[in-house]
């Protein structure tokens, strides 16, 4: 099964890639790992006139913890994200998710930048980035700008990224002491998209109450969803059973799932409720030094 015909470019710099995107005026797609894009082209769900392969651009694959942020280059493979020690130690929501994206062979080629910019509500990293309060760096003809993950996703496969911009970096505020995070994915089998999945990051302050909370939801709506009410509810709470229960209900209210082979709407909403509660409990345990 062949994709339709397209022009292929392998630029050596981000500037060159931006120039090519600008020249094609919305008819070109960036090819990073291609693990979603090539499949969609084979099925004619996507028919770009040109592919701009960014794999030949050096220095786009890295994971670095800086003074104020963890920065991840767009071309970092999801397998690499899963192996990173610093990620496992301080941003385990990403290690949890990286272990459940598609399968190990797909993860060898699929990228972090592709996963967050593709716009499929089934991608696992967008909800994590929402929970973490991440920002994306978008580079275009007029320079670079940053877009908060919580404002990036507009509709299925529709994002705030302009057709002549390349997403080059993900920037996550550095996790300080008392921070814990986790991702739980309910999936029917390896390689499937989530029936429902929940990303949580929170921080327990010196007084024992939560002073930072973010909850993201995967594949229970047209886009990844930031569960704002549930996140705000947790602020100032200590994380009692009833706190967790209420946050689960609020997250469930924020979900807008479609019925499909993975289950009807009522079931999915209930899974968001239950898995949010469990994932908060896991993140809390990690914030207090557990695994």
């Amino acid at each position, binding site marked *: 099964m*062949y994709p*339709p*015909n397209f*022009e*292929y470019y392998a630029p050596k710099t981000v500037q060159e890639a931006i120039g090519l995107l600008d020249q094609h005026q919305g008819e070109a797609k960036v090819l990073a790992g291609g*693990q979603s894009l090539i499949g969609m082209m*084979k099925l004619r769900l996507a028919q770009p006139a040109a592919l701009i392969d960014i794999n030949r651009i050096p220095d786009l694959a890295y994971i670095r913890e800086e003074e104020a942020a963890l920065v991840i280059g767009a071309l970092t493979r999801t397998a690499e994200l899963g192996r990173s020690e610093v990620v496992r130690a301080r941003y385990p929501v990403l290690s949890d998710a990286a272990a459940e994206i598609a399968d190990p062979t*797909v993860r060898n080629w699929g990228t972090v930048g592709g996963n967050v910019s593709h716009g499929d509500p089934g991608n696992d990293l967008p909800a994590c980035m929402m929970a973490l309060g991440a920002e994306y760096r978008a580079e275009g003809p007029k320079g670079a700008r940053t877009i908060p993950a919580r404002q990036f996703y507009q509709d299925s496969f529709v994002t705030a990224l302009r057709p002549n911009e390349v997403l080059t970096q993900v920037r996550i505020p550095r996790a300080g002491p008392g921070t814990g995070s986790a991702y739980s994915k309910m999936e029917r089998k*390896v390689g499937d998209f989530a029936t429902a999945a929940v990303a949580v990051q929170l921080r327990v302050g010196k007084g024992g109450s939560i002073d930072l909370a973010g909850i993201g939801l995967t594949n229970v709506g047209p886009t990844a969803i930031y569960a704002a009410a549930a996140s705000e509810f947790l602020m100032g709470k200590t994380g009692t059973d009833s706190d967790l229960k209420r946050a689960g209900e609020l997250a469930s209210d924020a979900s807008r799932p479609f019925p499909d082979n993975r289950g009807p709407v009522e079931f999915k909403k209930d899974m968001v409720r239950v898995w949010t509660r469990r994932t908060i409990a896991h993140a809390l345990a990690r914030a207090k030094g557990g695994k």
Partner: protein
Amino acid sequence: MAVDVAETPQAPGPITTRTIQVTVNGVTHKSTVQNRMLLVSYLRERLRLTGTHIGCDTAHCGACTVLVDGIPVKSCNLLAVQVDGRKVQTVEGLASGGKLHPIQEGFHEEHGLQCGYCTPGMMLVSVALLAQNPNPTEDEIRRGISGNLCRCTGYVNIVKAIQHTAAKMQNPAKGGP
């Protein structure tokens, strides 16, 4: 005569092509391919290396797994132009000098296959797994091959074959468990 899909014309407009240089199993090939040609089709139809199989053609089953610069990838989900300048290893590159690769011996000794359709992909993903983790637990093996489907064996003998190979590669004299 078999139809070379890569040469089938497509309307409208001219089909775009590119010349690539790829080292497959140690042999460097210079080929002009359609931009849209998949790596698996390049290997099977152009180079006639038919050991790499097409199963689902949707990046789920892993029958088309090959190593690109030593890393397992699903060659039905990669364009031939993407491997320009890279090294590819297929199942045909495992044995050398008429001697089976230890992973091939493992699958032979432990009866790690029935119909054999998934076997090339299973062996290549195992070679990469053992290069990274020479002494994997059963759980690590099962996770490592979770991108490869087998519909015959129930995986039991595949896991045994990989364990056999791991033991043999660590202690060649003993010849496995």
